[in-house]
């Protein structure tokens, strides 16, 4: 069993949990993910690793409540144990030889962008973190980015935090003002990553996007996480989760991501109702 050693709400719908998982912590690297089950009847969900501590044997996850399983997870307390926790899965972020990188994160995707920024920063790379949220209430990891980047560019849709605008606006401005990046690494909603990659491609900058499709086993067996990259079918779990953003078919990925949307919505409501009843 995998104990939740720390639980912290980063904003009303995003929670950070530190999980005791020594085997996973030993090998974890930024860019990789884990799969967990909350209970013996639970579904398997993939979550990208937000941080890890090899000495303490812990792995940190950050998740947004979107469906039944994340709702259940969010109700678990410090000291509770997850039924299953397996990883690290997927390939780590490629960091070799990078001297200057723009890390572009959006929303809860910033949770995954952060360990990438941190690793690059530790390696002595110049990191420009461009982080965007809908509004100031949804901001997470502000300090963490500040401590692990050369510069942080803060964006919000409504201007309530940092500058008003999209992360693509900031990225465009930076590139056009002469900033030369070896690579743009982007993690966030698919639609955001699509446009970030669009900006990078337009300016001939290499772009890497971290994908988070529906998956079950996470070891290449089910093929549910398949994507089209450069016209070829790839499996996010073993070939990724990071791919060349110029080659990803984002429209297909967005369509595939909605496969179980009705089920998820229904399941989320059902789970909420269940918890509401328990409270009474």
């Amino acid at each position, binding site marked *: 069993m995998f104990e939740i050693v720390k639980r912290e709400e980063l904003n009303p719908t995003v929670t950070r949990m530190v999980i005791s998982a020594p*085997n*996973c912590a030993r*090998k974890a690297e930024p860019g990789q993910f884990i799969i967990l*089950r909350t209970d013996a*009847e*639970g*579904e*398997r969900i993939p979550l990208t690793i937000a941080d890890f501590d090899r000495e303490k044997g812990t792995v940190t996850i950050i998740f947004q409540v979107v469906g*039944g*399983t994340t709702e259940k997870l969010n109700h678990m307390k410090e000291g509770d144990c997850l*039924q*299953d*926790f*397996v*990883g*690290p*899965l997927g390939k780590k972020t490629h960091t070799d030889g990078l001297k200057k990188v723009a890390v572009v994160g959006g929303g809860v995707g910033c949770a995954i962008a952060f360990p990438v920024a941190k690793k690059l920063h530790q390696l002595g790379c110049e990191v420009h973190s461009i982080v965007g949220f809908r509004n100031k209430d949804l901001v997470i990891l502000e300090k963490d980015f500040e401590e692990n980047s050369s510069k942080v560019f803060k964006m919000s849709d409504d201007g309530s935090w940092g500058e008003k605008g999209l992360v693509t606006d900031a990225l465009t401005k930076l590139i056009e003002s002469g900033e030369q990046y070896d690579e743009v690494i982007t993690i966030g909603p698919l639609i955001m990553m699509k446009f970030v990659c669009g900006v990078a491609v337009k300016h001939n900058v290499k772009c890497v996007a971290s994908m988070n499709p529906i998956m*079950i*086993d*996470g*070891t*290449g*067996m*089910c*093929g*549910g996480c*398949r*994507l*089209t990259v450069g016209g070829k*079918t790839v*499996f996010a779990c*073993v070939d990724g989760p990071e791919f060349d953003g110029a080659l990803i078919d984002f429209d*297909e990925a967005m*369509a*595939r991501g*909605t*496969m*179980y*949307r*009705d*089920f*998820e919505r229904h*399941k989320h409501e059902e789970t909420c109702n269940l918890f509401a009843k328990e409270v009474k």
Partner: protein
Amino acid sequence: MANMNPKRNEMPVQDPKVRSTNFNEVALGYTEEQAIDEAKRCLNCKNKPCVGGCPVKIYIPAFIAKVAEGDFAGAYDIISESSSLPAVCGRVCPQENQCEGKCVRGIKGEAVAIGRLERFVADWHNANADLSAVKVPASNGHKVAVIGSGPSGLTCAGDLAKKGYDVTVFEALHLAGGVLVYGIPEFRLPKAIVQKEIEGLKALGVKVETNTVVGKTISIDELMEEYGFESVFIGSGAGLPKFMRIPGENLKGVYSANEFLTRINLMKAYREGSDTPIQHAKRVAVVGGGNVAMDAARCAKRLGAEVYIVYRRGMEELPARHEEVEHAMEEGIIFKTLTNPTEILGYNNPEDRRDPMNGFVTGMKCVEMELGEPDASGRRRPVEKADSEFTLDVDCVIMALGTSPNPLIKSTTEGLETEKWGGIIADENGLTSRKGIYAGGDAVTGAATVILAMGAGKTAAAAMDEYLQNK
């Protein structure tokens, strides 16, 4: 006196109309009377060709003689000398090509129902045996690791544990059993039976570590250098599902058989209230003709769909076990043989990009085939008939085309040689290109059967024992 009835005892089964709406086991098993009557059909002939047909060489006439005497415990002891998983094999082995295919009673009538008798004996044992009475064999002080808890891994682990080895099985998923739990459906192999077999191994002292992806969580070299495992068996099974590379394969409603079956079998998505979703399609096309295709088709049927098997060769060429094809037909699966898909069609509302139906499967374009000259495999090669294109009206497509090996272990184990197509290279004893590392099952052969994987696990266990005893 032998029972000279040319016909075997019928297997009691659930009525097809009833069973096609539930996930309970289809075959119900012989009664004691039926088992004894069937056992008496064995002539105990001199040559015992059945034993030669068995990949794990169960001493078949001897166990059948015990059944005929009503000594079921004695029969079990004989089977378990050779097989670690008799309740499984009795259900899923292709007996018609193995033991029963060689039975002399089959020349003028029907072969002795060896598989059904094996199942009977194993079920009798599981119902009556006391696991707490099992003694953990005395330790011989050697530590071995088994990667994967499918049929090859469990067999290898069982054989080594019986010899006194300290065996740890590493499993990537949250539950042990491999294909026996994620692949083969409940109605063909109840999961309680698999768990019972695994409990039996644990009673022998075998440790099972779930949630451990060897190649990711830990490497083989770490197991050997840091954790003190002296020898390792790789039974990691088949890997990545194959697709046809036709347009539309990434539409919503196209599954690999692995995904469809895993959602149903491992994750119990068929149950009301399950946390794991599955599409409840109206009309399903399963592409392929093997056992996995039959399993997927029969699962889809049980979820309430009208189901087609789409296979490019003819009925005669279906690679699935006869019994699975028969059961599928009885349950109303429609066989579209000599048919090959060319494109999967999806819904697209040009007026509304946010239409929730966009991107879902609406049909599958196919062409009719005819059989031409035999190809390299000796089977007649299917060729396309001119102007035969038609569209099958389906909203879900399941690709059951086999798998290609998983690269995880190969890419993290230096010096482990693989075939060009990715299979791990192992000699006839299962020894790989690395000293002390053995492999068997689908990871070596590509997709095959449970019993062949068990045979490989057994062979490797013997070789590992010899290696460690002479080290």
